[in-house]
């Protein structure tokens, strides 16, 4: 184990370099392009050096103290191989993108993302333990999102959303698997650490599922045909060529390291049985994947979509190889080597194919195979390079695909021979059929795009691809041929030593190279398969079978999309739901089976829809019930609070009334209250009468200035005394009468009586004034005028008594009700202490300003309304307080008596 910082440099150098891309891109595009080529070229050189060092030293290590403990990096032969072809494809794709991206926008973002993804890819293959692997795996998935969504078309965005969710789900599955492995005591990837008992099956399933999402394995493959075509062509090459291999790498490491017992364990051990079982499962997953991929690929018209489906199919080959290798245990060298080699090969020719198709689209403007044709004349070099790549993928001898496919085929045969299970024979047959289908598909691609008659509008305008693109494709085609002729370069250079180091006897490889490679049997098989492909192609084109499509509900994607829509609806994310609904419309139905398919549709709508609706209803019901419960609780709390406040308010009111009555005394009956008010009014009237009499006395005095001061004063004094006497008598009489009325008839009678009296006020006042004026002189002379006064008084009082008796009749129309100052109003006036003070002050000043000789007597001040009401209030207060104190004394006395 040698420590080598080259690993760290390889992984982190593109990441750091990516930081410079936006800055450089703003300054100069050429500078940025040069920088990007430099970085990818350096990565390629670095991976070559790494491979050489690994071959020399065996295994290299490095570590960084980050995250939970340490980021471990390990490079063994397989890592070096993966790093090598990843860097190589990246280099070529970046070279291609310099020309291609001229027509795209956001080039800085593209290049920066591309470099970060390269860094993540290298981190995945050079990872030394599962946490490091997960870190770079997630980064790979999430940053590649930027590549998928790059063009920004609605289709790209839909595909990107789907890609994103699949990445997240796969990441969660992977994380659970990794956590399980750690909980079982494992973790480091190389060398193998024995795992304890426990949830081994669950961990294996989760890991395979998590890596399988990235690898495009069935049943989680359906994001791939949507995501890979919508990316720009160089990005598609990277996605299909390299990125999905990260998933394959992960499955390879799980099979060979995590779930393989440590070296030296006997093959009869139960642990090996688990490995064999897992290998078989992966083999079958691979078989299904390859079949599904190729069948769906045949039905595509969009060239990139077809290539994406073929990626799925070829990944199936890789998985079948790896699985067969694992389930063959000690003899699995050929299968594992075949799978790994196919990963390398696929990267090379698939990248080349994507770049070629991209070049065609770049020049001819269309990706639809049925709209192209006859391009071999206009784009000869592209045509030649595409032929090479197609030969590679279909497995024609002398090209690299032939080697890996034969190895996998032999491994499958060996597995069948080893276990005798009939299912493996079926698997082998499916393998051959898939290979034939691949051949048919690529005959179709080359035939429709390059050969035949051109269906373009202007075939003459199509030029050859730009030189950068041609160089890139050419570079990729070279190893396709080289590895086809001399596979031992990789097989014996890297794969065999790697297997040996891992404890798997590599004799199978040497055996293959010696016996099977370019043997007559293999070549014959390959040509037969190719011929079958040709036949399939011919039949398909003749009968239009390539336009058949399956009903929508047979695709898992449809179910996943419905589930996604359900989740979105449950959580109320209307926007997300709408986006998902507008994704790819349903596919067409064959004319001949329209009735059946309509039946399918109806069943699907009711059946699938019902399940979805039930689940939806359950979820909605739950959230609704919860929401309603919450609402109801809040509502009842609010109602309770309102009632509490009301009660408190009423209690407060009652308390206030109690305090008031304690302080001020119980409010009396309405009649009593009215009488009090009437008292005040009558009092005022009395004072007003006296004032009027006084004014009348003083009036002529002003005119007759001949009278002396003293005589005038005496006369005024006499007037005042007489008026006061008479007014007082009238007042007492009125009060008594009103009291009688109130006692007899209550407040209403009293009110009516007072109204009647009020109508007499003016006449009474006049009479009293006259009487006072008439008798004043006599009084001032000192005569006895008592009889005269009573003579004058009696008619007044009688008149008023009569008026009162007639008060039972309703008052005449037009007579206004006298407005009495109610006790509350009086209280309000009393409370307006400031106003009262103002009045007093005003009065005082006015009186002081007048001549001392005309100072009215103190009774005039007493007659001001505010003064009167104040005095009344004080009297009432004193009375009430006295009452309360008396009551308290009584209670205390009682208390002591009783005690």
């Amino acid at each position, binding site marked *: 184990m040698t420590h080598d910082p080259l690993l760290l440099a390889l992984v982190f150098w593109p990441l750091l370099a990516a930081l410079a891309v936006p800055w450089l891109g703003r300054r100069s595009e050429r500078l940025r392009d040069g920088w990007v080529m430099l970085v990818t070229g350096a990565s390629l050189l670095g991976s070559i050096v790494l491979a050489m060092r690994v071959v020399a030293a065996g295994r290299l290590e490095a570590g960084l*103290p*980050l*995250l*939970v*403990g*340490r980021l471990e990096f390990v490079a063994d032969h397989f890592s070096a191989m993966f790093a090598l072809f990843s860097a190589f494809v990246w280099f070529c794709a970046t070279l291609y993108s310099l020309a291609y991206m001229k027509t795209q926008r956001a080039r800085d973002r593209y290049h920066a993302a591309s470099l970060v993804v390269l860094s993540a890819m290298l981190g995945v293959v050079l990872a030394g333990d599962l*946490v490091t692997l*997960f*870190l770079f795996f*997630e*980064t790979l998935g*999430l940053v590649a999102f930027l590549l998928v*969504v790059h063009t*920004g078309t609605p289709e790209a*965005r839909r595909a*990107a*959303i789907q890609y*994103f969710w699949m990445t*997240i*789900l796969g990441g*969660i599955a992977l*994380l*659970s698997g990794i*956590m*399980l492995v*750690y*909980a079982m005591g494992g973790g480091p990837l190389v060398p193998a650490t024995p795992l304890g008992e426990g*949830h081994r099956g*669950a961990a294996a399933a989760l890991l395979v599922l998590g890596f399988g999402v990235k690898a495009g394995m069935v049943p989680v493959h359906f994001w791939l045909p949507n995501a890979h075509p919508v990316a720009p062509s160089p990005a598609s090459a990277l996605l299909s060529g390299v990125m999905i291999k990260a998933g394959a790498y992960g499955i390879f490491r799980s099979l060979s390291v995590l779930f393989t017992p440590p070296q030296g364990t006997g093959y009869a051990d139960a642990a090996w049985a688990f490995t064999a079982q897992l290998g078989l499962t992966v083999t079958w997953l691979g078989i299904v994947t390859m079949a599904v991929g190729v069948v769906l690929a045949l039905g595509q018209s969009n060239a990139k979509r077809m290539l994406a489906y073929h990626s799925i199919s070829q990944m199936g080959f890789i998985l079948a190889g790896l699985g067969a290798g694992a389930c063959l245990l000690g003899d699995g060298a050929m299968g594992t080597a075949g799978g790994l080699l196919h990963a390398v090969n696929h990267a090379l020719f698939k990248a080349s194919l994507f770049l070629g198709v991209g070049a065609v689209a770049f020049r001819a403007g269309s990706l639809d195979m049925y709209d192209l044709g006859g391009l071999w004349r206009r784009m000869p070099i592209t045509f030649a390079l595409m032929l090479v790549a197609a030969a590679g993928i279909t497995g024609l001898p002398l090209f690299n695909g032939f080697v890996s496919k034969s190895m996998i085929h032999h491994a499958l045969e060996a597995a069948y021979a080893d276990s005798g299970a009939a299912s493996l024979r079926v698997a082998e047959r499916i393998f051959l059929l898939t290979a034939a289908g691949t051949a048919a598909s690529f005959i179709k691609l080359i035939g429709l795009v390059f050969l035949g008659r051109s269906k373009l509008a202007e075939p003459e305008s199509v030029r050859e691809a730009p030189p950068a693109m041609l160089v890139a494709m050419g570079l990729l085609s070279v190893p396709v041929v080289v590895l086809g002729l001399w596979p031992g370069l990789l097989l014996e250079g890297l794969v065999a030593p790697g297997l040996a180091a891992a404890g798997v006897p590599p004799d199978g490889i040497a055996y293959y190279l010696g016996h099977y490679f370019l043997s007559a049997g293999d070549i014959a098989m390959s040509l037969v398969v190719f011929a079958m492909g040709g036949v399939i192609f011919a039949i398909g084109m003749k009968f239009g079978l390539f336009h058949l499509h399956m009903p929508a509900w047979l695709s898992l994607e449809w179910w996943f999309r419905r589930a996604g829509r359900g*989740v979105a609806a*449950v*959580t*109320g*994310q209307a*926007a*997300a739901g709408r986006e998902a609904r507008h994704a790819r419309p349903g596919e067409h139905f064959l004319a001949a089976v329209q009735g059946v398919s309509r039946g399918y549709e109806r069943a699907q709508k009711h059946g699938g829809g019902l399940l979805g609706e039930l689940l939806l209803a359950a979820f909605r019901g739950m*959230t609704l019930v*919860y929401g309603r419960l*919450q609402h109801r609780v809040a509502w009842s709390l609010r109602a309770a609070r309102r009632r509490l406040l009301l009660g408190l308010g009423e209690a407060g009111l009652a308390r206030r009334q109690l305090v008031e009555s304690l302080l001020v005394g119980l409010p009396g009956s309405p009649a009593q209250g009215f009488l009090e008010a009437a008292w005040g009014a009558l009092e005022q009237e009395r004072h007003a009468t006296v004032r009027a009499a006084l004014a009348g006395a003083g009036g002529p005095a002003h005119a007759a200035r001949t009278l002396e001061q003293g005589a005038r004063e005496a006369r005024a004094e006499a007037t005042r005394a007489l008026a006061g006497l008479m007014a007082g008598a009238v007042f007492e009489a009125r009060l008594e009468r009103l009291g009688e009325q109130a006692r007899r008839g209550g407040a209403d009678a009293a009110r009516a009586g007072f109204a009647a009296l009020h109508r007499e006020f003016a006449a009474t006042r006049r009479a009293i004034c006259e009487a006072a004026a008439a008798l004043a002189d006599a009084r001032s002379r000192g005569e006895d005028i008592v009889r005269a006064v009573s003579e004058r008084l009696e008619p007044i009082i009688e008149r008023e008594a009569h008026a009162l008796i007639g008060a039972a009749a309703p008052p005449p129309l037009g007579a206004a009700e006298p407005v009495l100052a109610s006790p509350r109003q009086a209280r309000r006036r009393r409370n307006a202490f400031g106003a009262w003070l103002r009045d007093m002050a005003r009065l005082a000043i006015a009186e002081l300003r007048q001549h001392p000789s005309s100072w009215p007597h103190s009774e005039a001040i007493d007659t001001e309304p505010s003064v009167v009401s104040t005095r009344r209030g004080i009297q009432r207060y004193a009375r009430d307080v006295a009452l309360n104190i008396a009551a308290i004394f009584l209670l205390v006395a009682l208390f002591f008596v009783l005690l």
Partner: protein
Amino acid sequence: MQQATLMNLLPTLVVALPLLGGALALPLRRLGERTRILVLGALCAATTLGVLALVPGALAGEARAVSLVHFAPQVELYLRVDAMGALFAATVATLFLLALVYSAGYLRRDGRETRYFAFFMLSQGWMLGVAFSGNLVTLLVFYELFSILVYPLVVHEETPEAIRAGTKYIVYILVGGSLILLGVIFTFYLAGERPFTPGGILDPGTDRTLLLVTFWCLVAGFGVKAALMPLHGWVPDVHPAAPASFSALLSGVMVATGCFGILRVVFEVFGVELAAALGVMPVLTGVAAVSVLLAAILAAGEDDLKRRLAWSTISQMAYVVLAVSLLAPHVTAGALVHISNHAFLKGALFFCAGLLASQAGIRRVSEMAGAARRMPVTMAVFTIAALGIVGVPPLSGFISKWVLGVGILEAGHPLVLLVLLGGALLAALYLLQPVWMAYFHAPGATGPERRRPEAPLSMLIPLVAAALISILLGLAAAMPGLPLSLAERAVAAFFGSG
């Protein structure tokens, strides 16, 4: 007799400095706004440095205790620095510093900010007191003070909805506080006055009913603050109503204080054995699991951004309670680390939400289309924080999820892992949708990219700092002195080996 060295005074000092700052907030106004902010900032920074200086000692397991006040024979206020307290205090102090800088730029100068700063600094002091409290009485005192005295911060805006939210908050907190008080009284009755001890202070032989009552009183009381469903009702209303600089603290550390209380109760009042023997943990697990998932679902349905983040806080903090209820060492370490990591991630998210609301008028997720064009830095930080909460490596959220996950599996509850990952999946749903809207949604009729700076520097710096801290806590998680090491030290003490 301890010497009055600086280190021994430090716990009291870090609690007292913010209180001093709070008291000075009003008098300092006459020196000018800038001077006041600088002085308060200096006090806050000094507090942070003091707390960080206490961390190495706590990591080494040194016992550092300070008795503050002795009210009565049974009632003593007593500060103690241990690993868990140091972790929480460091988080609190750092986040408060960031929030102070943010507040300086965020608050409008309308005269109310004096009140804000005063109570802000005071609440930092109380919260550090909670972190360093050495017995239940101290915890109770500081907890209640802090809970009630943040009311002016909650109703700072004085809009009708803010006042309503404040009233709701106070009612919930008072109810919770009463429950805690009841629990403390029961504890005193059962165990007398004893400081927090890692094995628990209650005698397992006492009456089981009393123990259960005490447990549920304390857990429910702290659970109100910890936003454990169904006691969570105040959170979704208070977070949008409070100003963004304080919402960050609310979500970041205030709700975590409730979880901190539950941690103290379970591990240092009851102890692991007694808690397991009582048989209450499965109930707590169920409640917490429901909280995680239901709050996450409700978060996904919210359109108001701050409300969505509030529900997210409820969900994330329920992870802590979920982890505590499993009573296993590694998962508890995960819970402690999660408190710390979540504080900075959620703080960053709320800072972003505040900026979006104040600079661009964006309050709802549906309005966020094309926001990345107008506010690139804000949305970049938002993306980082969102990915952190989802648990994408190498951010800090991944660390806490990892430790929690491995711990859950080691404790032998694989089904709880489903809850953990379900919460992560839902977090991706509700947090990455705004990111998608901001970056990749067609922006409609917005103008071209603005050239002027998107926000004042005083608001952008805490934003970026919180994101950088999250990245740092993720990348360098295993370094001694960082939350993971403190958490492991604390867990070692709780589970008896240290």
